[in-house]
């Protein structure tokens, strides 16, 4: 085991997959010479050269289209969008092309494309650089959507995404790049579509993903001090998400809180809650609670921005509500 950062874990995954498979290439804005705006692609240009580590113009649509075309031509591209908000510029290529093509061509297109993009709030980056837009992509059939939340799963899931023969959206959180975690020296690819049970408990299930994983764990710690044992699940994959792990847990705890950084309307919280109601309604002792990001564009001012992001005490209060302790 080695204690490394989330950034280093992602970087290692890219190195290992590029060494393993010569058809893997990295492309995006400032990924080569500048080594990535968050330095995730550090050192790649030096080892693999400009043929495989490609600086592109500021052309988000064409970056994704190029990756898609290259995949049709037999390559395995990893495209980076500098910030999640820039995905809006590329949505036509992602949702109208990449996601649909295999289906609309009757299964004849093979599109092993990974699209990495960092998002999330907490760094005063303002409305156009801090959003949580995973739901846009989760809503699109044909995509798989992964949200890495810690160094070990970041490395394992990025390796899995790159090896997957279908398009994978790989979400990273800007607030996690410096976070540390133990990562085995030799790590097999993770399983896309499988959630991780982080902590066991019989009183309430906390479902989270991305940066909300650590918020949920912190809340579970606070609840434990009050004698409430929370089960914590990190979804890790948002499409296809691991419904069974969640409903199995709720069948044991009879209460659930879903924590997401993005705004609540048609969000992952709504999706997870709806599934709980559909599958284990009879098991519930209380309505499912949602803790979500504020339903506004992220403001710049520090305190206002913090007010938009769920915190552990918000999760604790929601857990209390499910337990009838308002």
């Amino acid at each position, binding site marked *: 085991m080695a204690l490394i950062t989330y950034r280093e874990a992602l970087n290692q995954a890219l190195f290992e997959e590029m060494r393993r498979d010569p058809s893997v*290439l990295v492309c995006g804005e400032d990924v080569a010479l500048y080594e990535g705006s968050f330095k995730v692609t550090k050192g790649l240009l030096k080892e693999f050269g400009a*043929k495989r580590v*490609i600086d*592109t*113009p500021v*052309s988000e*649509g*064409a*970056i*994704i*289209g*190029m*990756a*898609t*075309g*290259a*995949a*049709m*031509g*037999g*390559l395995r*591209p990893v495209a980076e969008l500098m910030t999640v908000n820039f995905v809006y510029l590329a949505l*036509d*290529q992602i949702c*109208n*092309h990449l996601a649909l*093509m*295999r*289906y*609309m*061509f*009757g*299964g*004849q*297109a*093979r599109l*092993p494309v990974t699209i990495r993009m960092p998002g999330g709030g907490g760094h005063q980056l303002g409305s156009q650089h801090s959003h949580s837009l995973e739901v846009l992509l989760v809503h699109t*059939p*044909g995509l*798989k959507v992964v949200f890495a939340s810690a160094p070990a799963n970041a490395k394992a899931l990025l390796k899995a995404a790159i090896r*997957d*023969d*279908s398009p994978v959206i790989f979400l990273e959180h800007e607030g996690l790049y410096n976070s540390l975690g133990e990562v085995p020296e030799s790590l097999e690819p993770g399983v896309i579509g499988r959630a991780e049970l982080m902590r066991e408990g019989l009183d309430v299930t906390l479902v989270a993903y991305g940066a909300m994983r650590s918020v949920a764990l912190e809340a579970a710690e606070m609840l434990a001090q009050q004698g409430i044992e929370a089960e914590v699940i990190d979804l890790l994959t948002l499409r296809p998400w691991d419904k069974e792990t969640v409903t199995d847990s709720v069948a044991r705890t009879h209460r659930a809180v879903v924590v997401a950084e993005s705004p609540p309307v048609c969000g992952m919280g709504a999706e997870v809650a709806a599934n709980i109601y559909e599958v284990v309604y009879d098991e519930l002792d209380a309505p499912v609670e949602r803790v979500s990001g504020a339903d506004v564009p992220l403001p710049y001012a520090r305190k206002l921005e913090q007010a938009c992001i769920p915190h552990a005490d918000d999760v604790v209060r929601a857990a209390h509500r499910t337990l009838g302790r308002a």
Partner: protein
Amino acid sequence: MGGAFVNKRELMDVYYRMKLVRSFETRVAEEYARGRIGGFCHLYSGEEAVAAGALWHLRPEDYVIGSYRDHAYYLLRGGAPGKAMAELFGHADGCCKGKGGSMHLFDPSTNFLGGYAIVAGMCPLAVGLGLSIKYKNEGRIVLCFFGDGATNQGVYHEALNMAALFELPVVWVCENNYYAIGTSVARSSAVESLANKAKAYGMPTSTVDGMDFLKMQSVAERAIAHARSGNGPAFIEAKCYRYRGHSMSDPGTYRSKEEIEHWKQRDPIPRIKAVVQHDFEAGDDEFEDLDRKVKVALDQAVAFAEAGDELSRERLYEDLYVQ
């Protein structure tokens, strides 16, 4: 090979191919009117010389990608007419199992990699195919068809810039039929020469009479040679005309009868026939033989389509992900 057209057999083949496309579209219109084909359906009638000329010098391993007016690309690459017709019927033995339809034909066996219905959306895909060719040093090229309307899209300019910047083997073929649905080039593009718009990206461009097969193939031959020799992309603006509306649901009220008649006088099919008859001994009966061959091929295509049925509902969720 421009000078190689001293060969009657090849010219007769050109006639056959263009006639096949024209007659296919005529049959499609009939089947559409009978309600056996649905949705949006865009016919290539009038523009045959553009695709036939552009594709004439291509090799089987080259990639072709294009817009939703895609029946011609599919057929001229050698796709089976029956599988295209079955696709339009929405049937399981169509070239995309009936999941694509008229606008989304696809045939990996001929390296025709699809018709796309977001204007200019396929242009960055052509860049990526070009990148894969250069990456693997394959010596192939990509030929990308799109209309005049595409030249006003943002992603089109991104794609042309990147193809030129990375010196990728892409031949851009702009079918300038003067109208993006009902809005003319004059009313939508600040620069009426679409070749001039492409020149900004530092690639060789040509403007050609797209109603003339011989001119079209000659210009395409040069562009293809340029791309294949590793010099980066080349651009062709082919001026042409579609005889029908934008799609089957367009009555075409924005164009005058005189304008349509003017263009029909320059029809590429009688033109190639006249060339053969001028340069060689060729009786009308030889062309009538080819016309009969076309009719047989299309009768068979329709029969093949009629015999099939839609994919069963149980297979609705197939083909979304690689299993």
